[in-house]
């Protein structure tokens, strides 16, 4: 295989592994803050049983957060190196734009979260209640700020704006235009909602698993209620934002839409393909199952709207096969999320918010959906990133022109090393989460003394 494909596979492997963990931790940080505040309010009202439930939830999910955060950090560090090892030409060409954005991410966000994480995780009781709450807030704020900078850069690579090219070098004309480039608001909102939904289904799924195993009595109910409510409220919002993001893409990256929908020729009244196998060699689809005119209706909001086909972009469009399926996987999981969260919310409400009263089949369904957010997020990112090909900066810089000169066997060797490590770590992560969910008392017991002592000192106030 040639070095370009290997370098792309390696970067894709790393970025796929990396995004799993920030996707959880961005939203989970805010959820932890919510648990903390609920615990505080219940304690102040003197509702000891409820307060204990929220405290258990906070402590248990803090551990999940710590683990997810650590995995995000180590894979993020790997990425900061791979920019240089895999794409040395990228920084040489657009370093004046990408550099400051990445620099600001490290300076404002990475340090903020890493600096206060220690206090947030281990400082309860060592610092005042207010300082600790503030640390938790700063970690949550830092993770979101980090997403802001990274998505600003990513969106600039998709829909570059605010730059000028002087003598072959890229310079910034307006930072505001670079950061708030055309696709940024949509991508940022889409990603934050994806994080919230991933987190919501993780909360719901692990709680359902606890109920099925008959453990975690105090915290499973409030956590599941939080997770399901969050999912049920946000999934329609996400579908709406996703649609707007799609329209934005149609405007700025029509080749990406054509690949997603398997449209080869520019046509009016394009059918929506439910299934097909796009064939890049023969430049047509096999085994089409289509709904007439629906794609035009969805994308242009007109039954006879025109959609440009892949043949309009010779040698400058992404491969349709992975795009077509990744997009359908994302949408499919989204629809499933909508059905499960609305049904679940309604059933749980009818069961007076007692998850023990829910049918076991539904609980199994929740458990099966625990990591559904990961599937949708990764599929969505594949659509976005493969859809940018063959460019690294859409329409301006080709990926092939910035790849490193490292010999392919070397890339292949390290790729095998990374993939092995990442697969092992994903297995370890899921296994440990399952173990923690099944043995919450063992996980929480070690610190019971410290907490009791602090509550005795009036720390809950």
């Amino acid at each position: 295989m040639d070095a370009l494909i290997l370098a792309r596979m390696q970067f894709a492997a790393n970025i796929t592994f990396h995004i799993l963990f920030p996707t959880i931790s961005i939203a989970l940080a805010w959820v932890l803050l919510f648990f903390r505040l609920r615990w505080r309010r219940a304690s102040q009202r003197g509702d000891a049983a409820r307060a204990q439930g929220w405290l258990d939830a906070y402590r248990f999910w803090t551990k999940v957060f710590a683990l997810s955060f650590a995995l995000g950090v180590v894979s993020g560090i790997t990425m900061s190196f791979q920019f240089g090892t895999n794409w040395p030409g990228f920084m040489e060409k657009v370093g004046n734009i990408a550099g400051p954005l990445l620099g600001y991410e490290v300076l404002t966000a990475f340090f903020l979260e890493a600096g206060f994480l220690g206090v947030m995780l281990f400082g309860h009781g060592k610092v005042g209640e207010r300082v600790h709450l503030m640390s938790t807030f700063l970690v949550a704020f830092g993770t979101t700020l980090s997403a802001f900078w990274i998505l600003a850069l990513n969106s600039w690579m998709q829909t570059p704006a605010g730059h000028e090219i002087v003598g072959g070098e890229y310079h910034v004309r307006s930072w505001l235009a670079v950061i708030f480039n055309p696709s940024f608001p949509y991508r940022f909102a889409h990603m934050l909602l994806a994080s919230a939904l991933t987190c919501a289904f993780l909360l719901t799924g692990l709680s359902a698993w606890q109920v099925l195993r008959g453990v975690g009595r105090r915290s499973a109910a409030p956590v599941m209620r939080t997770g399901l409510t969050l999912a049920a409220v946000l999934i329609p919002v996400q579908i709406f934002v996703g649609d707007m993001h799609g329209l934005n893409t149609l405007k700025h990256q029509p080749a990406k839409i054509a690949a997603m929908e398997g449209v080869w020729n520019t046509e009016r009244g394009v059918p929506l393909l439910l299934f097909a196998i796009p064939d890049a060699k023969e430049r047509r689809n096999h085994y089409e199952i289509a709904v007439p005119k629906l794609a035009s209706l969805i994308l242009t909001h007109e039954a006879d709207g025109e959609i440009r086909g892949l043949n309009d972009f010779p040698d400058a469009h992404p491969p349709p096969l992975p795009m077509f399926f990744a997009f359908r996987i994302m949408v499919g999981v989204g629809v499933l999320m909508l059905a499960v969260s609305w049904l679940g919310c309604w059933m749980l409400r009818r069961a007076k918010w007692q998850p023990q009263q829910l049918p076991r089949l539904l609980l199994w369904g929740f458990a099966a959906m625990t990591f559904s957010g990961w599937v949708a997020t990764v599929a969505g990112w594949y659509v976005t990133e493969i859809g940018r090909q063959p460019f690294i900066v859409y329409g301006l810089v080709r990926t092939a022109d910035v790849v490193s000169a490292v010999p392919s066997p070397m890339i292949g060797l390290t790729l095998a090393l990374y993939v092995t490590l990442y697969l092992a770590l994903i297995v370890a992560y899921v296994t440990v989460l399952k173990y923690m969910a099944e043995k919450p008392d063992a996980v929480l017991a070690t610190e019971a003394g410290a907490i009791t002592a602090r509550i005795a000192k009036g720390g809950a106030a």
Partner: protein
Amino acid sequence: MNLMGFDAALPVIFMALMGVSMLVYVVSDGYDLGVGMLMHRATDAEKDVMVASIGPFWDANETWLVLGVGILLVAFPKAHGLVLGELYLPVALMLVGLTLRGVAFDFRVKARDTHKKTWDRLFFAGSMLASVSQGWMLGRYVSGFGTGWNYTLFAAAIAAALPMAYVLMGAAWLIMKTEGALQERAVQWARTAWAPMIGGLVLISMATPWVSATVRERWFALPEIIALSAIPLMSGVALLAVAGLLRTRAVRGPLCWLPFALLIVVFVLGFLGLAYSIYPYVVIDQLTIWQAASSPAALKVIGIGACISVPAIAGYTVFSYRVFRGKTGELTYA
């Protein structure tokens, strides 16, 4: 460069900032990695205290590496590609090591008891792999990525010596942060690591001028050599003081912080020596910092951010160290 305008000074400022980030990384993650490499010598209860002593800090410590590499990436993009291309394999190995070490922190306390031993082993192995790789990278970098058996030997020597320096730092950290039997063992570990570390340091100091003509000319010229001799002399005094301290009773009591502080001085001196050897190159004999730098406009934008955020980072780093000051108790999530 007679009249150095602000634009021409910018790359120098960024080189300094990058150097300081790398120095802070080497010192701070150095003790983390050192503690990690001492893990296999400790009892299970001691392992928990050792991990607890670095638990609240390691994450922020590693961020300095990201900042250092980040500055290399954003301020000196041409050097970033060259350096990381040359160091492709050791960088990958270091990243695998740092990944293993980083995740073992969390997995070891959350996994099933029977798996804890495996994670402890991975903690040790990851720390070792990262340290050895960093030593190799340092050796290759200092010698300008030269080819030939002497360059390989030189890199191998540093790959062996840097972990020793980290172990000494780790032991000194434990002397400062722990008490009782573990502190006593840490003193022993420090004494064991001292001699090989000195051997490595002397060897490297003698070998560096041998592998690099540029460094040789820089150091062995009058009158520079007289002023420069302060660096090895002061390092020598600090290291001898560490050795002396390790034999005293005070190091177990009120002076427990002193070996660690002295070792930081040694690292800072070593860094200054290195900076003197390399400046104004970012890759020795190949690329000066001006050749490798981004446009002044881009550097200014990052510079403004750095001026605001680096003091803030320093502020909350100090805050975090103050929160977790004193001897390490049992570390609990709360």
